[in-house]
């Protein structure tokens, strides 16, 4: 009997928490609705023109013209979703409503910013993908190493090392060799991280911070000590975009996905391969077991140390590839600290994406979208300071990490050293 009541009390408490969360979401959605109604208001007669094709494109489609009334509808939809949360909120709908609400908000924002003007939507989507790539590859590197329970703060350093090596070796031996060397050096830093945390049992976060400091120091030192004198060492060829025939002629999607350089295709392929590997192969299952319960994995005959070495090295290689993007994939020249915190955003993308390769890629696309939006908004002269837009994804990350949008769960043994008995 007492058991029963305790159980009931607990489930009531849980329900209470869920209901409260649903109500909080409702309030947020209604606030967003008010935001759209009063701040992002557009005169119903005004039109926002979104260009979807440029004159060079083979297939022409007319621009998308959205009347200002769209924002009224958006506000109404947001209000509906918000009120719905109060009436029958909770469960799956809470997260779903918030996702839909944010999407509506972004669309309303675009209409408001573009009202009376025209805006190249396809160009922005293309820039979104390009900007998302290093973040996605950083996130994927995080997934690979954290799935075997090694926290990887060193992504930033690995990206920077890849960028540096790509520029140096690319200048000496050509782009392809630069790419191979960048991947190799990234892998070396992965191996170093594994060595420090597995063999020398250094705190994983400290090891990561140290690798970041070290790579920043070495690359900055060489670029100011050597590159400044011998400019030819820092002048690598750039991988141009490869148009995929037929597919690249599709309006909007073509230029966004099928007219990019090898880094973009590489990132999509790597995400697909990593997903298949982690969740559909025997070795992937073993790797995840090491991340969840190394003792159990060890008992079953899986070599925990070896698994960690291999996956953290692979993670380094992925990050090295992503780092090469900064030099070989865009400007061909290395500059001090050119990754500028992208590795940390990759780490956030990994958490945002719940330690799943596809999730990390999607989160990276969100970050890339905010980034390119911020760039393009300067052209549209909106009153919102670009700094606040730049902040938006970081704030979103904090909200996600804080578990407002469904708690993300890291691999159970994440961050813990394993001592074989």
């Amino acid at each position, binding site marked *: 009997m007492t058991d029963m009541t305790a159980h009931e009390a607990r489930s009531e408490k849980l329900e209470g928490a869920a209901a409260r969360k649903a109500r909080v979401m409702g309030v947020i959605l209604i606030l967003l609705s008010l935001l759209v109604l009063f701040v992002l208001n557009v005169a119903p007669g005004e039109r926002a023109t979104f260009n979807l094709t440029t004159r060079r494109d083979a297939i022409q489609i007319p621009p998308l013209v959205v009347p200002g009334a769209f924002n009224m509808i958006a506000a109404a939809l947001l209000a509906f979703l918000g009120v719905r949360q109060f009436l029958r909120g909770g469960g799956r709908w809470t997260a779903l409503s918030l996702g839909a609400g944010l999407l509506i908000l972004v669309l309303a924002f675009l209409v408001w910013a573009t009202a009376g003007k025209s805006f190249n939507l396809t160009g922005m989507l293309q820039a979104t993908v390009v900007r998302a790539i290093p973040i996605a590859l950083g996130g994927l590197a995080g997934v690979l190493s954290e799935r075997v329970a090694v926290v990887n*703060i060193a992504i930033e350093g690995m990206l920077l090392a890849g960028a540096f090596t790509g520029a140096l070796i690319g200048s000496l031996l050509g782009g392809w060799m630069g790419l191979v060397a960048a991947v190799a050096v990234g892998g070396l830093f992965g191996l170093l991280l594994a060595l*420090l945390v597995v063999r*020398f*049992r*250094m*705190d994983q*976060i*400290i*090891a990561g*911070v*140290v690798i970041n*400091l*070290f790579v*920043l*120091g*070495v690359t*900055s*030192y*060489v670029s*100011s*000590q*050597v590159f400044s004198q011998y400019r030819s060492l820092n002048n690598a060829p750039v991988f141009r975009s490869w148009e995929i025939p037929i597919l690249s002629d599709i309006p909007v999607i073509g230029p966004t996905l099928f007219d990019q350089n090898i880094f973009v295709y590489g990132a999509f392929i790597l995400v697909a391969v990593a997903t298949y590997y982690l969740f559909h192969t025997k070795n992937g299952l073993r790797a995840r077991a090491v991340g969840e319960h190394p003792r159990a994995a060890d008992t079953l005959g899986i070599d925990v140390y070896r698994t960690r070495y291999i996956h953290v090295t692979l993670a380094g290689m992925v990050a090295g590839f992503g780092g090469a993007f900064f030099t070989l994939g865009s400007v061909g020249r290395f500059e*001090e600290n050119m990754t500028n*915190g992208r590795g*940390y*955003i990759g*780490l*956030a993308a990994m*958490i945002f994406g719940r330690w799943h390769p596809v999730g990390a890629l999607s989160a990276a696309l969100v970050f890339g979208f905010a980034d390119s939006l911020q760039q393009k908004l300067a052209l549209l002269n909106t009153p919102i*300071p670009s*700094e*606040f837009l*730049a*902040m938006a994804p*970081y*704030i979103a*990350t*904090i909200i996600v*990490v*804080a*578990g*407002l949008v469904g*708690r993300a769960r890291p691999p159970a043994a994440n961050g813990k050293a394993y001592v074989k008995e």
Partner: protein
Amino acid sequence: MSETRKDVNERLQGLLARASHGRDDFEDLVIVPLFAVVAALIFGALVMLATAVDIGTIGRSFVALAYGAFGSLNAISETLTASIPLVLAGLGLGLGFRAGLFNIGAEGQVIMGGIAAVIVGFSLTGLPWIIHLPLVLLAGVLVGAAYAAIAGVLKATTGAHEVISTIMLNLISYELLNWLLRQPWIQRPGRSDPISKSVPDTAQLPRLLTQIDPNLRLHAGIVVMLLAVALIYWLLFKSKLGFAFRTSGENPSAANYAGMKAGLIIVLAMGVAGGLAGLAGATQITGVLGRASPGFSAGIGFDAIAVALLGRSHPVGILFAGILFGALEAGGRQMQVSAGVSIDLIGIIQALIIVFIAAPLLVRAIFPWGFRRKKGGAA
């Protein structure tokens, strides 16, 4: 019978080891850091060799490094000036480590504390310095503490990992700083680049050695720094709150069973850490820079992580570690000027010092003759 005597002897030895500093402590506190610094300097020389710097220049650069750090009154003044914000922020980070919190956010807290000091500094005018200066420093402390407390509250209430939230708060603070510096009420009149108004003289930390030489930059922040070291020592080791911090860092479940409120401790520890980082920003503004510009924090918050690790999260250790890092910075500038070796080398040396400190096993593996062999375990 002999068994019991052996037992008693072992217990006595254990007691003795606890009562006095044994050789193990000595190895940990002195030999490991010493070897770490030596190994890092050797490796720095190798890096220079690898980038085609000749032996003579390497020798000269190390001489310049030492001279620029301690070779003259001006060098010592520069070393101490550079160490003030590092020690202050490092104290906060060390306190966080003791409480089991890995706060990467000192950089953002330095920025927020610094900008708060600037705003309070130029907004209040006509106050005597004895009121104005403490107010400005207090603003830095409070804003830094509040900014860090965000991460603390998130961790305490939702379990959000402080590493991620503080990294994000750092990134947010850069954007916030860039935006604030463009606001007409902060931006210096007549300037189009992002730079703040200057802090008036009544809010500046006085320079201490201008009677000897007007170029000496050492300022009263060093007094603030020493007071903070003493205060944090007292807080950590002599107060009830410090005991709670250390207990929840070393054994969270024990702290929980002892009735300590884990959430409150996290928020307080983050708050104190952020307050110290904010104070670091405020002293940098009021003692050295006089105004804020983009990147005025200059990586202090990240270097302070290294300082806290090197100082073993002990206030006195952090004081020495901060002075060492200040010396590396001041000496590195001299090295760049007189030997032509880039100051970025210092970054490499600093990173290596932390590797060797954070992985004592590694130092023991490199210098096996420096340590007593441990029974059974790895040498």
